[in-house]
């Protein structure tokens, strides 16, 4: 897919700028946006500076990186991960974090969607001069998402995709011997997750959902979210003004319905009071479960629960694939088992119906007699 940058407005108008239109930080250029966080009106140059610096501050205050660490950027080609790759490269050079950045992409095998977005990632790789590794579902599980949807139906597509993608990122990182994956999850995503967990009463997840660094017990790979406090709106504007090349098409398979509801609620709340996103994150961070005796039953007396989380103590492994799992068999293997049972035993030659099955379904939906 070709990509054309958004147009540059030509400022040929000699309309005088009113003082009230000036940037509230530098007081010399015309403000072009109102920051959702604090309603401050600022100009383009100041926006770049505050946006980048806030992310830098998030990284420093939370000690996200160690010098010499190798870090993989989970790159989908979408707006968040494209901006993330750009910002990480920029900040690493500007503030000398001394980290080594690699782009890591997962190819789920969705014709007409992922192949196009991977093309974007490949362009990003050249634009930023970063190494790129692509791991595919086909390679890891011998199934593409198109085949999965053809077998299991479109309804559960997001479940399969989510479970396999999460594991694929870990496996990709492991393959590269990298122990830290950063993702482009932003403040909006996090606030949505907090809302979702509250709405469905998922207390266990609620507490964990606002952590900036997450690491499953026993997992050698940690994940972090440098954009935790960055508004989606600012990320999109940053990409727009910097003319970053990103991919923006909805996945051809059914979007995650419940998240959609939470997202809509968030967007409407944001329209009324933009700071609500950061407020919800703040609330989420402060909701802490009352400690239950039972939760630390396995600990030896006097042992600090925090050290257990970072060690391998309760790191159970899947009996089939060796991946970390709280059960005997990991979720991915369970899903795979179900799929294998239903795999068509006869394969049609030159059958292309599997590719882009969702598209065909969408077309069929609109047909009527």
């Amino acid at each position, binding site marked *: 897919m070709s990509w*054309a940058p*958004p*147009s*540059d*407005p*030509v*400022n*040929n*108008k000699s309309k005088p700028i009113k003082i009230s*239109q000036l940037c509230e930080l530098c007081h010399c250029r*015309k*403000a*072009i*946006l*109102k920051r959702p966080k604090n309603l401050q*009106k600022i100009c*383009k140059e100041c926006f770049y500076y505050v946006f980048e610096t806030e992310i830098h501050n998030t990284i420093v205050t939370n000690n996200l990186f160690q010098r010499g660490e190798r870090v993989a950027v989970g790159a*989908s080609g*979408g*707006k*968040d*991960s494209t901006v993330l790759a750009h910002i990480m490269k920029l900040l690493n050079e500007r503030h000398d974090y001394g980290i080594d950045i690699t782009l890591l992409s997962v190819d789920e095998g969705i014709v007409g969607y992922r192949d196009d977005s991977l093309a974007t990632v490949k362009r990003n790789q050249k634009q930023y001069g970063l190494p790129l590794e692509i791991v595919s579902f086909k390679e890891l599980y011998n199934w593409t998402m198109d085949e999965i949807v053809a077998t299991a139906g479109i309804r559960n597509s997001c479940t399969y995709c989510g479970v396999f993608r999460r594991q694929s990122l870990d496996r990709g990182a492991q393959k590269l011997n990298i122990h830290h994956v950063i993702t*482009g*999850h*932003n403040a909006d*995503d996090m606030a949505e997750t907090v809302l979702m967990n509250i709405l469905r009463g998922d207390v266990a997840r609620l507490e964990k959902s606002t952590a900036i660094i997450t690491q499953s017990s026993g997992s050698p790979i940690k994940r972090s979210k440098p954009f935790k406090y960055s508004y*989606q*709106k600012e*990320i*999109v*504007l940053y990409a*727009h*003004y910097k003319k970053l090349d990103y991919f*923006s*098409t*909805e*996945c051809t398979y059914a*979007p995650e319905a419940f998240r959609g509801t939470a*997202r809509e609620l968030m*967007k*409407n709340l*944001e*329209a009324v009071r933009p700071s609500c996103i950061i407020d919800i994150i703040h609330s989420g961070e402060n909701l802490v479960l009352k400690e239950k005796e039972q939760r630390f039953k396995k600990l030896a007396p006097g042992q600090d629960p925090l050290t257990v989380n970072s060690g391998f103590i309760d790191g159970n492994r899947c009996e089939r694939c060796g991946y970390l799992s709280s059960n005997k068999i990991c979720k991915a293997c369970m899903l795979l088992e179900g799929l294998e049972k239903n795999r068509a035993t006869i394969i049609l030659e030159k059958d292309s119906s599997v590719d882009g099955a969702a598209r065909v379904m969408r077309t069929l939906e609109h047909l009527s007699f």
Partner: protein
Amino acid sequence: MVNIKVEFLGGLDVVFEKKRTYDLSIPTDGVDSFTMKDLLDYLVSNMIKNPNDVEVFIEDDTVRPGIITLINDADWELEGELEYEIEDGDVISFTSTLHGG
């Protein structure tokens, strides 16, 4: 007549026949002012082919929350939103932030 450039970004082009950029010359019927409100009405009645797609773009008579509207690269919140009077040569862009990153 007002000559402007309108852009549909971030995936919004799907409801505008998959074209991202339009150079428009819109007749203003001799009236002097052509506002953002008038532009939205024009886009809805002339450029969205499928009536079901209108709600992707418009909610409660304004641009749907989650779509960023820029007038000459400035957030329309700072330009008076629906009341902004469009001039020749303006670049108006609509960017959806609603789907995955």
